[in-house]
């Protein structure tokens, strides 16, 4: 894509975010997106005096982040760090001039950066984050926040004590389709929301090939309990954030069941989870994630009394009742100039099969929401003020995912913690 083409698509993307966030109540429902998009809309055309980032962890996600940061107008990657050399080498092509480090402490000591980006395994997030704050730097860290609820809170406490920005990567919070969906839900288009049915279903082992110079714990860290809560922290966090966001609340309680059901290959984390998150007023988020059937994929079915939203598919559906057959016949009769008695008032029966109407598009496409996360972060670093509301959403999503893990491990209902850190 040429620079000119990119500028055009960037502009249209930001316009979409601006349109989606310009609705009644959206300033309080998605304040981070409003801030980020309005800053991006007024951003200077070239990187003048950009925020200098050092990326820790240049694995799959880290490399994707580096490419997105390159698109942003106000951030630049000046240093990259990975303890596994082959991944550092792979990242080089996207940041050829960046200094390279094998140890994050060397990168912090070398100075010359304003903030770090953390894209390492979950169990390392908190420590890396503390070190960065101690070095006087701002932090952008991938979701989930940390391996324990206590560490999630400690990350926030440290940020506060250091007076630095802490932003967590939740790209859906910047996605025009999600923002549009939220706007329409808030406008009452799908009625009263009582249930969200969310799933992330895949049909693969979720296991990566281990190169000769590495070990399984290092490469497949997601499958080890001390490193990750598996499906909960790696996948469910995104959808639990969406659930809290649309229901405008945190869960009161969660029950769940987890098992290693299909991939009995020595992994420690569940390959199959099913949970119910309860919200005030009897509302629920029903969550399942599994690794041996992909038909239903990744989706949040947001269900209201007047309709349904499926943001991953980018569609909104109205509740459409089945047609009254007698009236449909009357309609056809009139069209062909025929008048017949309309039998009406008898009990009408119909089997309760799933409704398969096509619905209406909420907009869908390859968007640059991850770039926008960084433009927002860059703006926050410059202003010394975090994007409003974002950290709370991220914290609550991480806590929800870890609380779900506890409910499954302990086989008991877990109530929402009362000792969370105030934001």
């Amino acid at each position, binding site marked *: 894509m040429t620079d000119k083409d990119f500028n055009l698509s960037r502009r249209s993307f930001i316009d979409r975010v601006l349109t989606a966030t310009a609705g009644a109540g959206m300033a309080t429902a998605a304040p981070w997106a409003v801030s980020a998009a309005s800053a991006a809309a007024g951003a200077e055309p070239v990187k003048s005096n950009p925020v200098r980032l050092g990326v820790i962890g240049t694995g799959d996600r880290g490399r994707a982040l580096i490419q997105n940061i390159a698109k942003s107008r106000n951030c630049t990657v000046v240093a990259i760090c990975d303890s596994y050399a082959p991944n550092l080498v792979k990242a080089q092509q996207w940041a050829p001039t960046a200094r390279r480090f094998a140890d994050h402490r060397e990168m912090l000591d070398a100075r010359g950066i304003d903030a770090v980006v953390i894209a390492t395994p979950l169990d390392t997030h908190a420590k890396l984050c503390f070190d960065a704050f101690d070095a006087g730097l701002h932090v952008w860290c991938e979701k989930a926040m940390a391996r324990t609820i206590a560490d999630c809170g400690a990350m926030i406490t440290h940020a506060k004590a250091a007076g630095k920005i802490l932003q967590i990567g939740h790209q859906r919070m910047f996605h025009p389709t999600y923002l549009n969906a939220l706007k329409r839900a808030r406008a009452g288009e799908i009625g009263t929301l009582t249930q969200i049915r969310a799933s992330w279903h895949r049909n693969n082992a979720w296991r990566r090939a281990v190169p000769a110079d590495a070990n399984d714990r290092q490469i497949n860290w997601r499958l080890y309990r001390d490193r990750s809560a598996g499906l909960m922290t790696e996948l469910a966090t995104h959808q639990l954030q969406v659930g809290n966001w649309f229901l405008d609340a945190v869960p009161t309680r969660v029950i769940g069941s987890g098992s290693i059901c299909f991939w009995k290959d020595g992994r420690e984390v569940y390959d199959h989870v099913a949970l119910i998150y309860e919200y005030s007023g009897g509302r629920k988020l029903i969550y399942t994630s599994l690794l041996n059937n992909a038909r239903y994929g990744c989706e949040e079915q947001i269900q209201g009394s007047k309709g349904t939203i499926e943001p991953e598919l980018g569609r909104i559906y109205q509740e459409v009742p089945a047609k009254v057959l007698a009236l449909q016949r009357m309609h056809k009769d009139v069209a062909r*100039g025929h008048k017949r008695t309309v*039998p*009406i008032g*008898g009990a009408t029966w119909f089997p309760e099969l799933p409704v398969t109407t096509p619905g209406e598009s909420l907009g869908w496409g390859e968007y640059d929401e991850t770039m926008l996360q960084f433009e927002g972060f860059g703006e926050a670093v410059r202003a010394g003020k975090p994007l409003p509301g974002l950290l709370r959403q991220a914290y609550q999503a991480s806590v929800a995912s870890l609380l779900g893990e506890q409910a499954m491990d302990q086989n008991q209902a877990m109530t929402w913690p009362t000792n969370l850190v105030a934001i």
Partner: protein
Amino acid sequence: MGIAARVERFVAMGTRIELHVFGVGSEDALVAARRAIEGVDDALTIHRPSPTTALNDELLAGHSVAIDDPVLAEALIAIDAAHALTEGLFDPAADRRFAGAGWGDLVFDRSSARIAATRPLALDFGGFGKGFALDRACAALRDAGVVCACLSAGESSIAVIGEHPLGGGWPFAIPDPSRTDAVLVEVELVDEALSISTTVGAGTQAPERAAMIRPTDGGIVTAARCTVAIDRTGGAAEAMSTALLVADAARARRLLDAAPAQRFLYDLSKAAARTDDTARMQAA
């Protein structure tokens, strides 16, 4: 040349609504009619917080209330008239929890829109709401220039505007709820509404359906009956079909004789209600 036809289908008042408009009428006619029905639902529902649940809270607490919701105020006026029309047999204040309580225990001042109860009671508009909602929708359609339309709320409440698109009345056949293929009566409507009430048939077995209360003694109506009422307004038609369902023989006779071409009552006690396959199916 075909007649332009437009349809709006949606769920409101706990049932499926269909609005069929033929010929002229402004672009937004159907939307306006739909909003009118949703507005009545919002005002009269007792299944979620509404002006009616707020009113009930006050009446149960023994307070006198000023009705500031215009839709609720209009409904109460229509109900007052319907109560009189049906010799008190249509009574939205009859409630088994408060045996003997009824509309007569309410003091309703139309001019000031104030209402007070002389004993604790609560209102449940039931089917009346559907007819009343169709009336409001018809008014919205007429305001939008519509001259030919057929509206249905759950098939037991129908309202028509004008004549059938091909001229003459709108012909409807009311099937026997207890016997498939049998017809109870055929009627023709012009600028009228129709309401069907029954204690028989599959729809009556829906678990959420409230029992029909006889206001004269607070008992539950169990007689196997189907009633049909036609009136200028949907609200009045609903009230009348309900009244006929609960009426004793003498009152039923009086109400039927007053308008024999518009009011019908069928005793279905001899015909067994069919219940086959109901577990798998859902009532309309």
